[in-house]
């Protein structure tokens, strides 16, 4: 019969060491534990009244963003598990603790958008929401230089499967390399660059029109959570790149795969009437440079130039090809 010490030496069963508890990732876990919010506690009545008086163009501008957010939050909730398994496999208990809050928060964001669509707009079924979904293939670069992909619906499952396979292999370097790619795509690129303009558009617009206070508050709460998710991903990636500088190329590679999504504003971000879209493109460049700084990697200056190039933009509403 196996003795207890043979199963696992007693000292090694205590994972939360004083060193981990003093670290940056554990601090994020503590902060997440303090910052819990409940979508069911928000008051959706004013949003319902505002929705009734908004114009069709205003409604369209908002709902094309929120339906993408609802599905997107559900997708990222469902695709986060490989990161948790990888943190466990790498023996990083502080990462495991933080990712547990990360997963809970993504689930909460999913719940928020479901509630908002149901209580403020009266949209409950997937079919009702799908009617407002702008098709990605209708976003086209008229000069044919860039294509727009689906980093959330195609990229995350793909890199999640790669990370899962690496975890199952048990090879530390394979797990680290796949973690860098997954975290770069999820936290740095999707959450930390591509999605950031959408938050600003919704907050700016609802302030400008003085409407939808519950939606605005929900977005602000979500942004607070996302700040931790993004900087967890960039910090974890930084740690791994510091260990093996060769991983930096992997981070650039995965962002480059979905480069086309950054160089212009996408279909669901272009529907709000009267917005200065150039402002959000400039901010996208700043967010990219910030993420590179957090990961301590060298930014791709050509990408920055492309994001800011006024001659590179998409048109929407035509069939691709």
């Amino acid at each position, binding site marked *: 019969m196996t003795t207890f010490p043979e199963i696992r030496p007693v000292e090694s069963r205590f994972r939360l060491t004083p060193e981990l508890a003093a670290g940056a990732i554990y601090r*994020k876990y503590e902060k997440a534990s303090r910052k819990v919010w409940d979508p069911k506690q928000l008051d959706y009545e004013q949003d319902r009244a505002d929705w009734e008086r908004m114009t069709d163009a205003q409604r369209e501008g908002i709902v094309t963003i929120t339906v993408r957010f609802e599905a997107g939050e559900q997708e990222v909730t469902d695709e986060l598990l490989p990161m948790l398994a990888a943190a466990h496999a790498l023996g990083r208990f502080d990462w495991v603790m933080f990712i547990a809050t990360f997963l809970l928060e993504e689930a909460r964001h999913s719940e928020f958008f479901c509630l908002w669509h149901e209580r403020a707009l009266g949209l409950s079924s997937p079919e009702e929401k799908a009617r407002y979904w702008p098709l990605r293939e209708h976003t086209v670069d008229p000069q044919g230089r860039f294509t727009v992909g689906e980093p959330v619906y195609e990229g995350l499952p793909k890199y999640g499967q790669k990370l899962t396979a690496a975890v199952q292999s048990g090879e530390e370097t394979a797990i680290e390399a796949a973690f860098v790619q997954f975290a770069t795509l999820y936290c740095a690129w999707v959450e930390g660059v591509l999605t950031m303009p959408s938050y*600003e558009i919704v907050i700016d617009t609802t302030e400008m029109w003085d409407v939808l206070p519950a939606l605005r508050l929900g977005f602000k709460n979500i942004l607070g959570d996302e700040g931790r998710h*993004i900087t967890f991903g960039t910090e974890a990636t930084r740690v791994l790149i510091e260990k093996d500088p060769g991983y930096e190329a992997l981070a650039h590679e995965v962002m480059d795969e979905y480069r086309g999504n950054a160089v212009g504003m996408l279909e669901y971000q272009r529907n709000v009437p009267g917005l200065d879209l150039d402002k959000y493109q400039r*901010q996208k*460049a*700043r967010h990219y*440079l*910030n993420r590179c*700084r957090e990961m301590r990697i060298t930014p791709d200056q050509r990408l920055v130039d492309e994001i*800011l190039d006024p001659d590179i933009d998409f048109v929407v509403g035509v069939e691709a090809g």
Partner: protein
Amino acid sequence: MAKSWQCLDVGCGAVVSAGSDDELVKAVNAHVREAHGSYELEEMILAVAEDAPDEGEPIREEATR
């Protein structure tokens, strides 16, 4: 401890300093709001904040490039 943060908005490069983390977050957001019509998240500011050489100096802002 005094902290500083540099703005990476293209063409800006302003450095914002403050006497504490909380003050830095407020000062950075004042800069980003006034100069760029935007905001920075607390976690992102603190992730790259550096110890400033002169502890306790008042908030200041300077363009560096």
